[in-house]
Each structure stands twice: as structure tokens, then as C-alpha cells.
């Protein structure tokens, strides 16, 4: 409880959501159309130095004790006769000063009844019947404070604090208060009319309206000070029915937390009475409430004549029924009110009085909310002092957490509804909403802070958000610069390579192939393999390359097939590539063109495509051509051709020539065919496949190997049929020389540039 008292009264953070008090709109606290702040201030100033005699309080309490309880609440009790008017000169000075000095503040009851009547209306109350807390109030204790605590008006107790107990910034003179409040009332009327919600209250007889905003502005002061009188009133009622000791003030631990939090804090109590802008309200007419429509619980709250006489600010239109103040039954008292009753062992001093006596302690670190603690400057970080304003609150008098200049700049960003409360305009709490007054936070349910909803996202949504983000293009200036720098170099290399090849192609064929070695080459080995074949034998030639490699592979294919046709060896072409049969058709057509007695189906055959890759080759090795296999060119059964008779047993084939443009078909032939049947196998591959095919040749898995354009040229020379391969050999050599020069020049440039960068790096470091 103590901790909550010192906590900052920020709305929505420290105050619980308490239902609106019915006293907010009750006619008891509904002031007149005049600004409540002014009234309360004036009253507070008037009651500030008024001595209250002990006899006056005793009489008032005695009268309260003698009032009989109401037996039936539904039946309106008879009105008590008005007490005799006490001569004014008999009244104490502070009561005389309460009387309205201006016609605007006079209420109907105020003219006829005085405050002294309220005190005198408690006849018979002796000092021994009073509870301890009242005795202490009427004793040597601070009478000013006791009067203010028992005052029905909620705002009067604020100004009953001794001037010496108040901090310097609260010691305002009445003149300063008038100056500070009146202009603001007139100046901010429109602003509050648009921002303050209005609750209608009974209209006064004069047609003036009373707005709930006034009561709201009074509530910060009224709420803490109302509860003790209410408890006191209940206690007075219960005294008629039960023993006074049973009505004990609630202990601190017995008070519910939400009520304990309603206690005014030191800052609140020491704050100015009303914010200037909060004293204006829109002029909304109020309709008088019908007495019959008033619920019983409100009727019980209506003051008696004694009480109304003690309220000089009671509006004229509100004429409470003359029902004697009846003490409430013990069972009718809500438990939370019963807990507020003073106890014997504890002084029945209202809590707000004790709070005022307590020195203002700096807020402890654990009491500060985390979001405020984060605003505190770090240790060692210089705190920027806010400029002092003359006549305003001194910064040194504030708590540490309020001294942070960041508080006033950060908190306004919170999404408070501006229509609910106005913001502070000056002081260290400038631009803060909901700090003062406290009444709004107590009387109304606190609107929840409108924070944007935090959407839970899983990994997929986060990834979608990342993808949805606008992607800033990466600056590729350096890469473009490099590319632009390399473009002339590339074009130069391409141009040199192209010129070298084109010029070599113009050299007469007689000069080509002169320098090519023939003897002991793989081509010669391959040539010898073909030469070793018996005449009229049948060989399988697999065209396993696609058109993209035909520019290279056609050279060796033409050379080998010419040799085979020259030797009158039967050729059965097939392919594991889809495009192979078409290449085979073209090559065979050119090779057999002009060959005498070398016919299709008899001397050569295009068996077509062998699907399945490895499985197809495995089937070919084990089964051979199926009886249903059709040739590619004429779509006839292979078995019907004369050459097909030689293929009934695949093992009768003396040689398989693989024209491999890639490694995969070569490996398939080696693994699936060559290992299954003991058939010699020769490979004519492209230059790129040669290093891998060489391993098979070195392992004696291949009988012969010829590769590349050089091997094709050698083979043409060996067959004494120089063709395109020989004519292109010079161009091939020229192209390779250019590539070698480019590679060497590139490496030299790299080494030179790196050697030049090293001294630069060493000098830079």
C-alpha cells in the first residue's frame, strides 16, 4: 500500500479498473454551474485557517447518533423539522467564512442552513461516545486537518494543509489561484466542450446546467476524502444499532488493493487543485431527476438537512428529500465499506491525513514500473536538466523518475484518446495525459491502451514478409566496370582466334597433314584393328553423339566408315541416343554413296535407337536384337534383312566400334556390354573424352582408341583418303596455338599484376 502511494498516478497503469462510482453523478457532489475549482479553492482557502471547536463536532456527532434508523426503506420517512437557526454571531469563525460571499455560490440550503447547523444537528454526542479517531481529530491534533477530513465537500481538504507542510511550489496565495484559474476557464471552454464527455445531471431551477466534467475534476480530490466520511457516516449509522467498537477502521492489510490504490499519492495531494483547462465544460442542459426514479441506494446517499446545510455548494435545483439520515444496517453495509471502519487499536485518522504527515520519499527503484525505469538515464550519462520555469514546480522537489526530461517527450506518443482527457500544458508533466486529475481514472473504466496488435508469426510468415520486402538492387557498378574492361579483351581474343582459324582454312590442302605423325599413333593402332577384321564380317557401329558434337565426331566417323566400306565390312549402325539414328543415316549415306555393291540391308543397316541406356545394352549383350526389332530407315524387321542373319548371335560380331561423344555411353558400353560378351571393342571419341577413354585402353578393355580431329586426320592419311579432317588440321593447329598464347599471356598478366599489387599493399600498410 505504501508502495502504491508513492507510485506515479499515471492513468491506466497504477489504477485498477473500478466501476464508476455512483457518487459521480449524485446530486450531492454535483456542484453548480460555477467552476468547481474556483469554489473548492475558495472554500479550501476559507477553511484553511478556521479553528473548529471540540464542542461543535461533538454536538454534530451526537445528533447523528440520535437519529433513529429507518425500519422500512420503501416508505419515505418523515422529514425532520428544520433545526433552529443559529445566530450568526454564535457560529465559529470558520463557519462564518464558509458562507457564500457571492450570490453565485449560494445554494438554497445555504441561505437557510449553515454549517453550524450541521454541527449542532448532532446533539447529545458526548466525547465518550466518539470513537478514538474522532477524539484525536478534536483533540490537540491538527484540527484543521480533522475538519477537512470530515468535510462533505471533497475538495476542501486539499487546502487545509498547513502552509508550512506544503512544498514551496504549492504555497500559492489566493490571488495567484484566482489569476491562474479564471482566465483558463474562459479560454478553454471550447476545447473542453469538444473533448470532455458529458453526463447529464439534474438541471437546476435557474436553467443552469451542471456537467459531469465538473465532478470529474473534483473527483481526484473527492475520492480519497469521500471515503472516510462515508465510512464515518456508516459508522454513525451503525452506532445506533451496534456497539461502536465494532466499527473499526480497516487495517492496511485488510483494505483491498484496488481501494488502497485509490489513495491519493503525495504528488497528487501536493498538485494544484485543478488543471486550468479542465474547468470548462460544454453547456449541456441537464434534466431534473424525478424523485421516484431515484433508486433507493441513491436516496440513501442523499444528504440530510444537516448535511445539506453543511454543503454550501449544493445546487439549488437539487432538493434532496427530507429524509432523516438513517444509520445503515450492518448487513446492508458492503463488506468493502465495512472494512474501512476505524479500529480501536489504530488511530482513526483518515489515511490521507497520515499521508500528508509522511514526508515525501523518493520513489524506490522497485516501485517504478519497468517502462519508466527504462526512461531513466544510464549511470554516468549526463542528465539534461529541463529549464526551470518561474512559478512552476521546482525540479528538485520532484522524484528522480520524474526529473527525466525524456518522460514528457516519450509518453505523449502513447495512443491515448485525446477526447478523454486533456494533456498537461506546463510543468515537468507537460504533454502527459491522464496523470491528473485522478478522478477520471477512478470513476471511469480505463480505456485500454490502443497498442497495435502484435501478430504472431511463424517461420513461413516471416519468410513471406522477407520476400515481400522491397528489394534494393545491388550496386553492380564494380562488376559492370570489370565486364566493360574485359569486353575489349574478350573481343580481341575472339578476333585473334577467328582470324587464325580462317586464315588456316585458306591454306591449300596439300600443305595440311604433312607434319602429322602417323606411325605408332592410336590412329595407326585403330587402323590395324580394322585391317585385322576378316572380310565380309559384320561390325556394330554405335553413333553415340548428338548433333552438337557432330562437327568434331563426324570427322572420325567418316574416316572409320570409309575404311570399313573400303574393306567391304558389313556395318550395322545403332545408337543409344535419340538423335543417333539420324546421324548414322547421314554418315552412312555419304560414305556408301558411290560405293560399288555396298547396299542397304545387305552390307549395311541402320538398326536405329536402342532405348534404356544400360538396360538396353545389357539386353543387347545377352539377347541380341529381338526378333521384333525394326530398322530405322525402312521400318522393317531386322531379321528379314540378309545382314540380320549375322546378328542372330551377337557373339558372332568380331568388333564393336563406339563413336562416343560423351563419357556416359562409353562407360555403359564397357560395363554392360564388353564385360558380358567377349567382343573386341574400339572407341573413336571426341578429344574431351579421350583422357577418360584412355584408362579403358590402358586396362586393355579397349582394343583401339582414336580421338579428336587430330586422330581423324591421321586416320584419313592412313586410309589414303584425305578429307575434311586433313584440311582442318592446320586450322586446328592454329587455333590451339592461339589458345596456348592466350593462356600464357593471361598467366603472365596475372603474375605481373600480383607482383605490382604487393608493393602497393606493403606501402599502404
Amino acid at each position: 500500500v505504501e508502495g502504491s502511494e508513492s507510485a506515479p498516478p499515471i492513468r491506466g497503469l497504477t489504477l485498477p479498473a473500478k466501476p464508476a462510482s455512483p457518487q459521480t453523478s449524485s446530486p450531492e457532489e454535483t456542484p453548480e454551474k460555477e467552476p468547481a475549482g474556483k469554489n473548492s479553492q475558495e472554500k479550501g482557502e476559507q477553511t484553511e485557517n478556521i479553528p473548529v471547536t471540540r464542542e461543535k463536532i461533538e454536538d454534530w456527532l451526537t445528533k447523528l447518533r440520535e437519529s433513529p434508523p429507518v425500519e422500512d426503506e420503501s416508505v419515505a420517512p418523515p422529514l425532520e423539522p428544520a433545526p433552529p437557526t443559529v445566530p450568526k454571531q454564535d457560529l465559529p469563525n470558520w463557519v462564518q467564512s464558509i458562507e457564500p460571499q457571492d450570490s453565485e455560490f449560494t445554494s438554497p440550503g445555504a441561505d437557510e442552513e449553515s454549517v453550524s447547523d450541521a454541527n449542532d444537528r448532532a446533539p447529545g454526542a458526548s466525547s465518550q461516545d466518539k470513537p478514538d479517531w474522532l477524539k484525536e481529530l478534536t483533540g490537540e491534533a491538527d484540527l484543521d486537518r480533522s475538519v477537512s477530513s470530515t468535510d462533505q465537500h471533497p475538495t476542501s481538504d486539499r487546502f487545509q494543509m498547513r502552509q508550512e507542510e506544503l512544498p514551496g511550489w504549492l504555497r500559492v496565495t489566493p490571488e495567484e489561484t484566482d489569476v491562474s484559474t479564471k482566465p483558463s476557464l474562459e479560454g478553454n471552454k471550447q476545447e473542453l466542450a469538444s473533448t470532455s464527455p458529458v453526463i447529464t445531471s439534474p438541471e437546476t431551477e435557474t436553467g443552469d446546467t451542471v456537467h459531469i466534467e465538473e465532478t470529474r475534476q473534483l473527483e481526484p480530490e473527492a475520492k480519497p476524502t469521500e471515503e472516510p466520511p462515508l465510512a464515518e457516516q456508516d459508522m454513525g449509522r451503525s452506532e445506533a444499532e451496534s456497539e461502536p467498537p465494532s466499527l473499526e477502521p480497516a487495517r492496511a492489510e485488510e483494505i483491498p488493493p484496488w481501494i488502497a490504490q485509490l489513495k491519493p499519492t503525495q504528488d497528487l495531494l501536493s498538485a494544484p487543485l485543478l488543471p486550468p483547462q479542465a474547468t470548462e465544460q460544454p453547456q449541456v442542459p441537464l434534466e431534473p431527476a424525478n424523485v421516484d426514479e431515484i433508486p433507493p441506494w441513491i436516496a440513501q446517499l442523499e444528504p440530510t438537512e444537516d448535511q445539506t446545510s453543511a454543503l454550501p455548494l449544493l445546487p439549488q435545483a437539487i432538493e434532496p428529500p427530507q429524509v432523516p439520515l438513517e444509520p445503515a444496517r450492518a448487513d446492508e453495509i458492503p463488506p468493502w465499506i465495512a472494512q474501512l471502519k476505524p479500529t480501536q487499536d489504530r488511530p482513526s485518522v483518515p489515511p490521507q491525513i497520515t499521508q500528508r504527515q509522511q514526508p515525501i520519499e523518493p520513489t524506490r527503484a522497485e516501485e517504478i514500473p519497468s517502462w519508466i525505469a527504462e526512461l531513466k538515464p544510464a549511470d554516468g550519462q549526463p542528465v539534461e536538466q529541463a529549464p526551470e520555469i518561474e512559478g512552476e514546480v521546482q525540479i528538485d522537489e520532484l522524484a528522480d523518475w520524474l526529473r527525466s526530461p525524456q518522460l514528457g517527450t516519450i509518453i505523449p506518443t502513447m495512443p491515448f484518446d485525446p477526447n478523454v482527457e486533456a494533456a498537461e500544458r506546463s510543468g515537468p508533466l507537460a504533454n502527459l495525459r491522464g496523470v491528473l486529475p485522478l478522478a477520471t481514472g477512478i470513476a471511469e473504466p480505463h480505456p485500454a491502451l490502443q497498442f497495435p496488435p502484435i501478430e504472431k508469426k511463424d517461420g513461413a510468415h516471416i519468410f513471406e514478409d522477407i520476400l515481400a520486402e522491397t528489394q534494393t538492387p545491388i550496386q553492380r557498378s564494380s562488376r559492370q566496370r570489370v565486364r566493360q574492361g574485359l569486353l575489349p579483351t574478350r573481343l580481341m581474343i575472339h578476333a585473334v582466334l577467328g582470324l587464325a582459324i580462317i586464315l588456316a582454312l585458306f591454306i591449300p590442302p596439300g600443305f595440311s597433314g604433312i607434319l602429322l605423325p602417323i606411325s605408332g599413333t592410336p590412329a595407326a593402332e585403330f587402323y590395324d584393328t580394322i585391317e585385322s577384321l576378316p572380310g565380309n564380317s559384320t561390325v556394330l557401329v554405335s553413333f553415340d553423339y548428338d548433333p552438337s558434337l557432330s562437327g568434331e565426331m563426324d570427322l572420325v566417323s567418316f574416316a572409320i566408315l570409309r575404311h570399313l566400306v573400303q574393306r567391304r565390312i558389313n556395318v550395322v549402325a545403332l545408337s543409344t541416343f535419340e538423335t543417333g539414328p539420324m546421324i548414322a543415316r547421314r554418315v552412312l549415306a555419304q560414305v556408301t554413296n558411290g560405293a560399288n555393291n555396298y547396299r542397304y540391308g545387305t552390307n549395311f543397316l541402320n538398326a536405329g535407337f536402342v532405348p534404356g541406356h544400360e538396360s538396353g545394352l545389357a539386353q543387347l549383350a545377352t539377347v541380341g536384337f529381338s526378333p521384333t526389332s525394326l530398322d530405322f530407315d525402312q521400318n522393317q524387321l531386322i531379321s528379314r534383312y540378309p545382314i540380320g542373319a549375322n546378328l542372330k548371335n551377337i557373339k558372332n560380331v568380331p568388333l564393336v566400334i563406339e563413336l562416343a561423344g560423351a563419357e556416359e555411353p562409353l562407360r555403359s558400353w564397357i560395363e554392360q556390354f564388353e564385360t558380358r560378351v567377349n567382343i573386341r571393342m574400339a572407341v573413336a571419341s571426341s578429344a574431351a573424352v579421350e583422357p577418360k577413354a584412355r584408362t579403358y585402353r590402358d586396362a586393355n578393355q579397349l582394343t583401339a582408341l582414336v580421338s579428336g580431329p587430330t586422330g581423324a586426320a591421321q586416320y584419313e592419311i592412313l586410309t589414303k583418303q584425305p578429307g575434311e579432317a586433313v584440311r582442318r588440321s592446320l586450322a586446328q593447329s592454329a587455333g590451339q596455338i592461339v589458345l596456348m598464347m592466350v593462356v600464357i599471356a593471361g598467366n603472365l598478366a596475372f603474375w605481373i599484376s600480383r607482383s605490382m599489387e604487393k608493393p602497393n599493399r606493403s606501402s599502404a600498410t
Partner: protein
Amino acid sequence: MDVLGIWVGAILTLLVFSYLLGDNPLFRLAQAIFVGVAIGYGLNVAVFLVLLRRLFVPLAEQSQYWLVYFIPLILGLLLLLKSHKAWAPLGNVSIAFLFGVGAALAIGGASSGLLVQQVSATAVSLSPFQDFGTFVGNCLLVLGTIGSLLSFRFVTVQNRSVGQTFDRVVRAWSRLGRGFILVAFGAIFADTAVSRVSILISRFYFLLHDWLAIVR
């Protein structure tokens, strides 16, 4: 017809050569034409040379072997069900058949046709009493093969003098094997360059000989 084919080939060749100046729509046009022709031709081969010739025609004409062709037909149809999510499990039978046959062929062919043959090929004689060239070649073959295998060794021997000595020898040998590997990579790169230069020459020769006929 041959002249038209030569002109089409020449124009497409020039479109491909335009890539030397950078990526451009002409190159992309030629690329799209080649891809489209290849896919069309492959589909034609699959339909006419495989499905019709090897499945449906024999199934219709050779009724006595209908079961031999019916089973592949069912497996092929089940494989088509893989495109539908609900019926995809039915296609697992075909997939299992393909994977099983493919794995068996690959493992058997690699072990018997490649691994055993290649290992046995390295078992050469290192006797000096033979041809000097053969002797040197065999020595290089053994050193290179073992060094290449040692270059993929990632363990060391510690705290033993003999072990450290062995480790130094093995480390030096692995460096030698790494050198052999680099030489093999260089040879592959050089042969690839030779192959691509040969293809380039064929295109120049086509343009100068077949299209322009300025080179004989």
C-alpha cells in the same frame, strides 16, 4: 532442299555467334529454336520409335506375346499416375522397378566392368629388367595411382617417431599424387579446349566452304 538447309544452318550459326557481343534476342531466338527442335525430335522418337514400334505394334500383331508387352504397358501407365497426387503411390511400383533394375545394372557393371579391371590394370611389373620406357611408365603409373589415393587421406599419426616418419613420407607422396591429379585435370581441360576449337573450326568451315564456298 540442301541449299535451304545450308542457308538455315548458316543463319542460325550467325545468330549463335552474336553471343560474342553479349546476350541478345537473336541469340535467344536461335537458342529457343534449337531447344524446340530437340524436344520435338525427342518426342517423335519416343512415340514412333519406342511406343509404337516396340510396344503397341508388337502387342497388336504378335498376340502370342501379349503378356510380354502388356506388363510394360501397365508399368508405364502406373508411372503416368505419378502426376496426380492422390494416385501417385500407385506409380511407386514402376519407380521401384526402374530403380531396382538400374541399381543392379550400375553396381554390377561398375564392380565387374570398371573396378576390378582398373585395379588389375595397375598391377604392373616394376622390374628394371624390361624396356626402360615400360619400366618408367609402370613406375609412374604406380606412384601416380597410389599418390592420388593418398591425397584423399585425412588422418595423421602422432607421438611416434616411426609414425611421424611414415606420416612425412605419406604426406610427400600425397603431394605427388595431387600433382598427378592436377596434370590429369590439365589434360582434360586441354582436350576439352581442343574439342571445342574443333567444333568452332567446323562452323567456320561450314560457313566458308558450304555456305560461301570460298574455301575448298
